[in-house]
């Protein structure tokens, strides 16, 4: 039996047990659609679990579905990045730990639209779940990032005008459908800043300048909260390269404050906390 089928059997067994013994009211997972595409699905009963699967086409981050069912007892399958998203949501008080039953499993990465391993997964540092109620043992995908092929490093080494040219080009592609926001588990504001009109932060027009405000601000609102799962990048219908900016964002937070989101329960997100001796690069700081 191939490893994915074996994993799916184990997932289904644990899911059935979760319905019977652990009292979940619904299970969040994936199933195969009519045309063979793996898509997110909600299972409401023991019998429906027969349709539960996971494979490398499962590009959707299930944690984005958790808040809408937060008054029920939810079971879900979760690998590294999804479990980290859950930790961030727990740390931000968006859901109760008692309402979650997490079936953890090791992840082999998911693919993008061209069936290549997605750029978030190439760099994955946490394929195994960081939080779970029961666990399927196994090795996750090994980190395969190649510094020679790393766009973040390349952009870091470029000049300011080259970076601006790349960014402008990406921003021209954006159509402001907000799929990135909707696909992200951490973008859960009831009223997003783009929907505010007093004051109007940015116009609806999907031109390069307004798109830049949208994307830069969304990234800033995710600083210290993003787990680089890549769901936004995969959801984008226009192929805007969001991963390179989110990876850089995560690197900056790590470098400055030694913090990575979603690894420990009970932590405050990096920008909600401070140390009196944080690194300081401002003009006029003491001693300069």
């Amino acid at each position, binding site marked *: 039996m191939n490893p994915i089928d074996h994993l799916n059997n184990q997932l289904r067994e644990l899911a059935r047990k979760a319905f019977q013994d652990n009292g979940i009211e619904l299970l969040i997972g994936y199933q195969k659609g009519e*045309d063979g595409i793996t898509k997110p699905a*909600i299972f409401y009963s023991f019998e429906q679990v027969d349709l539960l699967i996971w494979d490398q086409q499962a*590009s959707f981050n299930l944690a984005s579905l958790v808040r809408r069912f937060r008054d029920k007892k939810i079971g879900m399958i979760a690998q590294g990045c999804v479990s980290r998203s859950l930790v961030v949501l727990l740390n931000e008080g968006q859901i109760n730990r008692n309402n979650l039953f997490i079936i953890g499993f090791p992840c082999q990465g998911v693919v993008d639209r061209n069936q290549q391993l997605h750029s978030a997964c190439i760099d994955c540092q946490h394929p195994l779940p960081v939080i779970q109620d029961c666990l399927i043992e196994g090795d996750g995908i090994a980190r395969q990032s190649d510094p020679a092929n790393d766009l973040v490093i390349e952009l870091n080494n470029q000049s300011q005008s080259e970076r601006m040219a790349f960014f402008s080009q990406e921003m021209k592609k954006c*159509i402001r459908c907000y*799929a990135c926001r*909707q696909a992200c588990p951490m973008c859960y504001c009831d009223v997003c800043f783009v929907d505010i009109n007093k004051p109007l932060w940015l*116009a609806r*027009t999907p031109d390069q300048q307004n798109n830049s405000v949208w994307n830069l601000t969304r990234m800033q609102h995710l600083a210290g909260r993003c787990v680089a799962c890549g*769901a936004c990048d995969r959801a984008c219908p226009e192929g805007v390269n969001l991963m390179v900016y989110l990876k850089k964002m995560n690197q900056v937070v790590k470098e400055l404050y030694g913090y990575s989101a979603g690894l420990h329960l009970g932590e405050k997100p990096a920008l909600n906390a401070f140390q009196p001796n944080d690194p300081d690069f401002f003009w006029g700081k003491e001693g300069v």
Partner: protein
Amino acid sequence: MMRFFKLTQQDWEKFLQHQSTQIAVVSMEKSKHPFKHILFPPHETLFYFRKDTHKELSEIKENKVLYYGLPPCDAKTIQLLGLNLLADPADPYFQTIRDNTVIISKACDHFEPNCFCDQIGGSPGALNGASAILYTVEDGFHLLVNHDWLSEQLVQMNFIPSEVENEKADFSKGSVPVREIKPLPIDHLREKGLSTISKTALWEKVSATCLACGICTFLCPACYCFDIQDISFGRVGKRERTYDSCLFSIYTTEASGHNPRPTIKERWRQRLLHKFTYYPMQYGEIGCTGCGRCISECPSHIDIREVIRDAEQYCE
């Protein structure tokens, strides 16, 4: 009455060559981007204004453009959008673009996994309101033309027309694919869709994994919802039109803050019933071309075909 021309490959190329010396000629093929983005752009400036006058945008495209190679589902866009945007009073921007657009669509030769035009009463070889449709046959093409200006152009190049009654006339349509597939139960929705409004269980199920991202509406050839915003700059300003989506949470939010469609299930209900119940009620046709973009581009891969079948079960 329509006209029907037999053309060889060379005839066709000669025709395109000749046209491109006079007007813009653009080759299109089925892609993720719908033809709607050209006819009804994602953003356009309607006009400029200052405090006491206004000025019409003088750049509305008045130049004729010929698009060829579109699949019939894309050609249907012009028909479907026209139902709403050309109803009195007609939208002058859309009207101008439409009046200056000539479409020669091309009958498809295969079905993609998410195509379902034939399941909703259409066909990959239908004229669908295009100016003309090209059928590939053994020794060239059969071109069915339903457009006076285009007919004239062809006749002037000495191509000989035959008169036919309509597109169902008996002439070879080449390799238009036909498949054994069950049609979708849209007739039930057409007649009895309103009876599903109170069926919360249906709409909860259907929208359980929907992200309300709006991609389906942005890419749908039948969706026309737009938002208007004024951009001001001192004493002057401009009025811009951009796409809006009934799936966005603020779409029906009222000034008081009350929202009659507060969750995704109400908005999904509206979307489905608009396309398959309200459109027929108002215009007699369903608001769907069967192109399948809403399925292939949806991040949750929600399949509208499954939704239609589910909804039918709940119709009374």
